[in-house]
């Protein structure tokens, strides 16, 4: 009994710590007043309405979506091709190429962003959503590659050989045999990439200029100090992400 109480007490404490900022964020997004600090003067939806009506935020949301989906698709496609080439490969240098392809995982975003910024400067390439997307492919490609690589087992390779023996051209082998066989891994890699790109700040901040993604737009909102509108943006982003997470949880649970 004493042991149970200790466990319950500790869980309460840590969960309290973990949830405290989220609860405060969401609660004070309903604040009927100009400052998101106690006392709570009343509940209102006007800050949420203001966020949804904000042109800049809506544009940033759209940019974020485009960059996330676009960069994730490219990263997944390239990562999948590379994983297929290296899975069960006896080629000389395969291990070295594998290491090189996953190297960006161990380098901080600050270094990746700064390197690209300096290179684009020298090459005379202007900053735009394109440059942000290039950066996001760099961080997501190793992830997609590693997930696809881990999913390709001996079974997949044999099925591919069989398809090739039956005369299927290479692209049909990939599209009709390999991809469907590792579909869950492809989906996981794609969704994970989207989450990473969607939430990424530093690279997007360094590599964008006039058109910005949502985290960068929120960043510039923070300069106005504590503001219930910022709470409202944060709460809405949290709501969307939590719902997406719940959907993925439910989808995978059913399969098991």
């Amino acid at each position, binding site marked *: 009994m004493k042991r149970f109480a200790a466990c319950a007490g500790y869980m309460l404490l840590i969960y309290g710590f973990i949830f405290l*900022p*989220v609860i405060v964020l969401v609660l004070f997004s309903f604040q009927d007043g100009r400052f998101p600090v106690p006392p709570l003067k009343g509940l209102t939806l006007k800050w949420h309405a203001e966020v949804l009506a904000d042109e800049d935020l809506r544009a940033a949301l759209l940019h974020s979506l485009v960059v996330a989906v676009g960069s994730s698709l490219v990263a997944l496609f390239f990562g999948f091709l590379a994983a297929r080439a290296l899975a069960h490969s006896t080629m000389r240098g395969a291990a070295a190429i594998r290491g090189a392809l996953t190297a960006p995982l161990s*380098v*901080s*975003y600050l270094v*990746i962003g700064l*390197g690209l910024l300096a*290179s684009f400067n020298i090459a005379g390439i202007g900053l735009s959503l394109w440059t942000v997307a290039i950066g996001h492919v760099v961080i997501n490609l190793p992830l997609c*590659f590693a997930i696809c690589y881990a999913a390709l087992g001996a079974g997949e390779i044999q099925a591919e050989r069989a398809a090739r023996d039956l005369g299927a051209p290479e692209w049909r082998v990939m599209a009709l045999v390999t991809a469907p066989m590792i579909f869950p891994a492809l989906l996981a890699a794609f969704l994970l990439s989207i989450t990473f790109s969607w939430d990424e700040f530093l690279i997007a901040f360094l590599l964008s200029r006039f058109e910005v993604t949502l985290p960068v737009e929120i960043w510039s909102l*923070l300069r106005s100090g504590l503001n219930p509108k910022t709470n409202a943006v944060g709460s809405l982003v949290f709501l969307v992400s939590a719902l997406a997470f719940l959907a993925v949880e439910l989808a995978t649970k059913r399969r098991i």
Partner: protein
Amino acid sequence: MTGSIEQIERRRALALLAPATLWTLLFFALPFGVMAAISLRRSGTAGWSLGNYTEFLGNPEYIGAFLNSLEITVTVTVLSVLLAYPLAWIIAEEIPPRCRRLALALAVLPFWTSYVVRSYAWSLVMAKQGVLNEAITSLGLPALALGNSRAAVVIGFTHFFTMLLVLTIYASLVQLPPNLRRAAADLGAGPVAIFRHVIWPLALPGVAVGAFLTFALCIGDYVTPQILGGGNDLALPQLVMLQIGRSADLPMASALSIILMVAVTVAYLLLARSMRAVK
């Protein structure tokens, strides 16, 4: 297409590898080389030199920022492991298995707030008139001045990495075979001895990987110290961003980033060595 099967397979593999490899070379390896080269230039002068690096070693402002970063990162790593380990343990061992998934999902739920917003939420909690001070003063205690302080940065970081470490430590705890524990108990070991001599050493590699991840992500982060720490008492990434923004000094920013990378690499080597010593 002629040649032996091996040659055909090899050609096919190279074609499939080409996009990913070229992308990584062009947008990762090349920029890194460019950055390393630029760090050897000196803003406003011609020629190549180690000037930026000697400047770093000689300037107390830079060294101070580096030490700040190191101090914050080590504190955060230790605190997060201490907070996360018991919770991971409780989820893995003490609660009914059907509740585990829910308990884990709850433990990482705030991950899904946007990264930038999470630090902002903590600045709300710790503001002068924020919830925390409200609670403290209603108990009759004096209010804390946590806003824009080192403590605020440490709390914000610890929050994030506690969530991360619950996941990694849980993962290394559940993969231990339960038979080991039963065997130790049969041989007369009490709960403390079992933990000390069986669980702790076996789960240690997983904990160490989580701790290294914390170290690497924490020391390179700009957002949390910028929002919660404010303008004085800078961390190294803040200094890098200052060099890019205000002073437009890319060479110095590059040199500082490389120093940051060296710190992470040294931490990794130390970890790898101590892991080998344990084995």
